[in-house]
């Protein structure tokens, strides 16, 4: 069991990160903290998918003179590049919403906002 965990340390780490992020999203009261939790979850998933493509001793997959196998798998990296773009857009929308909420209500604590409603 421990061996299995040790050989898959990268996956285990991303699962733990994912859980930390989810914990923040669910329990934190401050909207910014909630949102940072979401970012941690995103990082966990990205790390997991990039780790999928890693090949032991692999080179960057650039063809040309002197290129020799093994190569790392470029597809997960390409996917995550797109994923990061999506994450940045989510971040910008969320932060601008938080700014607007603060301007209107003067607070970003979820419980105080709920009382206002």
């Amino acid at each position, binding site marked *: 069991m421990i061996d299995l965990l040790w050989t898959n340390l990268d996956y285990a780490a991303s699962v733990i990160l*994912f859980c930390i992020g*989810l914990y923040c*999203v669910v329990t934190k009261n401050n*909207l910014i903290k*909630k*949102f940072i939790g*979401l970012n941690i*979850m*995103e990082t966990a*998933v990205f790390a*997991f*998918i990039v780790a*999928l493509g890693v090949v032991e001793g692999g080179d960057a997959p650039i063809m040309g003179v002197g290129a020799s196998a093994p190569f790392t798998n470029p*597809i*997960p990296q390409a*996917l995550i590049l*797109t*994923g990061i773009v*999506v994450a940045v*857009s*989510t971040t910008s*929308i*969320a932060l601008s*919403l*938080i700014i*607007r*909420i603060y301007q*209107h*209500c003067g607070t970003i604590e979820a419980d105080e*906002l709920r009382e206002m*409603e």
Partner: protein
Amino acid sequence: MPASALLVSVIIVPLLGAVLTPVVGGRTGKASGPWAFGVMLVTSAIALALIVHVANVGPFSAYLGGWEPPYGIELRFDEFSASTAVICLLGTLAILFSFRYAEKELPTERIRYYYTLLLLNLTGMIGFVVTGDLFNLFVFMEILSLSGYALVAVSGEHTAEMAAFKYLIMGAVSSLMVLFAIGLLYALTGSLNMADISVRLAGAAKAPAMLAVAALTVGFMVKAALFPLHIWLPDAHAIAPSPVSAVLSGLVVKTGLLGMIRVYQIYYGAKVLDLSSLNMVLVWLGAISIVMGAFFAIFQEDIKMMLAYSTISNIGYIIMGLGLASQYGVIGATVHIFNHALIKATLFLGAGAIIYRTGYRNLTDLRGIGRSMPLTTAAISIGAISIVGMPPTAGFLCKWYIALGAVEAGHPIFGFALVFGALFIFVYYIRMVNTFYFLEPVHPEILEVKEAPLSMLVPVLILAALCLVMGVLGRIPISFIEPAVIRMLAPLGG
């Protein structure tokens, strides 16, 4: 034009249209509404051509950049992708409805961005239903979700922004679930093409395949707002501008369901897991959703809040039909995806027209509105009858099919849940119709209100007429979707 070029342009046209909207609209945003309307008309024409093609020759594909799958991105148009038609129809009518609405309810400088976001949202949905690539599916899902969050907040009121934030948090977590599952499936099969994954998954390890299907199901369940993951929906759908509510409630939640259908297509084909226990969970959650959604709706004063809760119970019907995994059940569920979109759009746009004219949204304040806005309230009443599922309206046929599906799958008890839910739904829609027509007005000025302006009345009346027509001609969508459902369920040996 060859079919594959048409298939690409059904995404490109609205996408380009969306990008150009702020430029065309200018500072005042006056031209942006008609421009968006024109873009959607062109897109609708393309979608119609595609559906005619799929009805004649069956599913077909386009390869982006000429790269064949599994290496390139494949767009695939099958019978389920025909929901493009309803996306285009509702999108076009919602934009038409927005002309007057946006002018009054939105700050002037936001109007052009409002249309941009609406077009982007529709592009995302069209892309979502026509793509054959799992990662591409995720990207389109994010386009429609991100524009959805912004659309909820577009009015700039603080309640709207809070609702949008809640929606964003739930939506982003569910997107991550889906992305995680896509990563798992890629690790298992080395492919991102859905048809290819389905083939390669057959020999895969069971545990990760199960984890992937669980993550996908939960992710799409949040998008579809199935009980108990529905908590973001009522606020977001009730507070958003009415045309946006119609699009969100009629279409955006449905993408979660179409996503589930894609997952089923992969997993049924691969035969790697026995999904019957997952299906049982879905049927139960669907049944609970039907009853709870209807139950909460009864106590709502706000007319749009009531409609939002009613969406939750209708999602329950559809999930139940999908989970039954019998031919009738799945056909009923798929057709209800189309029909509920029509019905809910009628109701939300009608409610929007009333709110536009009166400024009231509580049922008590709206007493007697049937006398001053007869056409709008008549349309809403048709929508109400349809959603309860009375023959000969659009809602009846699908619910009948889902009930037949419950019997066919050997669980007639869920047929009772369905009827029980319909009774609940009947109660609160009767309450609404009663308020409109038979109660004495609280505010006398409500009798002086004029009928909705033409650009609002036309979409509402078209949709109401379609609710009736789809009830009478219900055979057409059913026979259209039947071969796809038979193909999907064939590996189950049914």
